[in-house]
């Protein structure tokens, strides 16, 4: 039986805002009438550890997690994390990668090395879309909204309209930050 459920993963470093992004996705998919399940990481890993959030939507969704070899879209807020979770992608899956490098403590202390040429390596196997969202967010004068810029880039590869996205953002982010988040989204969505 073919599984038409769409599987999305958002990965990054604890504290980068994966939860906000997945909640926007939850809101948009539910508003569109899909069954949807999200799975998040709270607790210890949020302290700078590797974090992963799953979003699945379709006619009916059973499990809330995405398993190896099944992700349609991988949204990575940090480059090393894109590589860590790439094997979760389907063959034809797409990676949206934010070109930010955050050294894990294992690298800082010299126990391991941060791999070189990650994006090139990933491009050999997958469709990779890269964005330097930190720089763009800084240009906008608000470094925190980089994650919504990344989501905007990812949104180009999903089946929702501009209006649906903006409405989901409006419903999800704190009222004071609606405008800046919408701008950030459009920066990613409509390109530089």
């Amino acid at each position, binding site marked *: 039986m073919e599984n038409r459920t769409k599987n999305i993963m958002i990965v990054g470093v604890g504290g980068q805002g994966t939860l906000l992004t997945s909640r926007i996705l939850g809101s948009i998919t539910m508003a569109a009438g899909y069954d949807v399940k999200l*799975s*998040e990481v*709270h607790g210890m890993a949020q302290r700078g550890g590797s974090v992963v959030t799953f979003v699945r939507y379709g006619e009916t969704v059973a499990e809330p997690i995405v398993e190896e070899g099944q992700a349609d879209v991988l949204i990575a807020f940090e480059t090393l994390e894109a590589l860590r979770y790439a094997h979760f992608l389907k063959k034809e899956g797409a990676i949206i990668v934010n070109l930010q490098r955050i050294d*894990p403590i294992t690298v800082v202390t010299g126990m391991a090395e941060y791999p070189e040429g990650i994006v090139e390596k990933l491009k050999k196997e997958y469709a990779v879309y890269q964005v330097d969202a930190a720089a763009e967010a800084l240009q906008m004068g608000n470094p925190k909204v980089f994650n919504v810029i990344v989501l905007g880039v990812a949104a180009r590869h999903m089946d929702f309209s501009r209006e649906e996205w903006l409405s989901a953002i409006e419903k999800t982010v704190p009222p004071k930050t609606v405008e800046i988040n919408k701008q950030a989204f459009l920066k990613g969505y409509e390109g530089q």
Partner: protein
Amino acid sequence: MSNRSNSSNQSNHREERKIMLGNEAIARGAWEAGVKVSAAYPGTPSTEISENIVKYEEIYAEWSPNEKVAMEVAIGASISGVRAMASMKHVGVNVAADPLYTISYAGVGGGLVLVAADDPGLYSSQNEQDTRCVARAALVPVLEPSDSQEAKDFMKYAFTLSEQYDTPVILRTTTRLSHSQGPVTLEERQEKQDVSYEKNIAKYVMMPGNAKPRHVYVEQRMKALEEDGCSMFLNRMELRDKKIGFIASGIAYQYVREACPKASVLKLGMVHPLPKKLIEEFASQVETLYIFEELEPVFEEQIKSWGISCIGKEIFTRQGEYSANLIRRAVLKEEVQEKVPAAVPARPPILCPGCPHRSVYSVMNKLKLHGAGDIGCYTLGAVPPLGVIDTTICMGASISTLHGMEKARGKDYINDWVAVIGDSTFLHTGVNSLMNMVYNQGTGTVLILDNSTTGMTGHQEHAATGKTLKGEIVPAIDIPGLCRAMGIRHVLEIDAFDTEALEKAFREETARDEVSVIIAQSPCVLIVKEKKKTTRRALRDKCKKCGMCLKPGCPALTRNEDGTIAIDETMCTDCGLCVKLCKFDAIQQIDL
């Protein structure tokens, strides 16, 4: 069975659906069930239950100092005749085990539910224990939902069952369920009439003469639940292809549906006691029966003991979380299309930039002190580069284990040891251990890392923060005063970033032949609300690449390609720790 009328009269309402976290749905279920009292101690993955309950004005909700207290608060509320609940993580149930085992005998006034959150896969815990084992020993029924909708529905029904069968009920959840979101249909709150209190010592005074007949009652109750469970909506036989049948509950049920949508499933919503006749019937209908349960073989061992042939832990692990791929591999023998994960450096959790614990630990590291540790963010001091925590067992154990070492090996043995405990954990169970150290003439040095919050679980208030779960301002318990009241003469309060004072205190207090307490104070960097005005920058021309500043492992510091130091100015909080370590004046303060 005591027969309490359920005065629910559901009013007409328009259907509202909302996407909810499992824990949020549990809170909603409690509200809809008319709960009036909720008590808890924070612990991943249970914390968000209370954080959502507090949004409902009709419910009194509190953070108690520990799970035993929380359980007892809920018990008192239940005896007084209202619906009440306690929520906690799996290891918290151990702390609450004493009242739980006995309230099982006494039964309830208003409905009483304990929400216990297990953590298969150890996302944020010290063990992988299975609450169903506790429930079997305590003779308490357990419900286990498998998505957010059921989390709400089962929570509500748990109160009905509790009153109908005169028993506390455990609602068991797991990390994956608690921290997943799914759609939930909302309903109105059922206002429950409070049960009027009647003095009944045969039921509520559990001395031997009263407990004996209650034990008989408890056995009857569990038998009745076992039989009635066969026809409850909680347990559902889904007959499809009869070649393969699964018995599953909770999130594991979803993995079965994902991997084998055509297979027959007996979905258990009440996981203790098991509906024996229903299981026998299901087993007789399917050719091969698999028991698919995360953690312990609780179903499997019971079902096998009834002479039913089934397959369980022979092919499914007792460790970690399950998945649909596990079934595809172990049952369907499918080649799961899996790529080899890339070899990448691990990214374990770390102390935040500007964390006061890092400052204290850098001093301990310099003095080569060993830490008898405890539960909290500060457990992260066990790993390189700080490496100052030698033991972590459970909440409050730091002080008592250090005391045990001293009694086993003598005073000199612990001269280079300190017990390390956080403020919230100290109030949880550390107080008793400290009392013991004083009483039994220990000489240990206790370090209380007071960051004015319960950090690891996401910043909850506690008795020494001066604020309640509801946000009310209250007098704060005075931690230094509490220590002095035990007769401890050397109680030092030191700024966590004053490394010189800390070094002096460690040297003097560990050498002292009596109990002393060093309280390192500085609020958790994540709760500091003031916007930072300064940050730090490393000067390339002055940096000698010695790496001293990297020693405490601050994530804001990395090396440039030429080996000099770079500071991420957005991460840096200007805590000043690296500045103290730099002998070449190469780290400059800059204004923001």
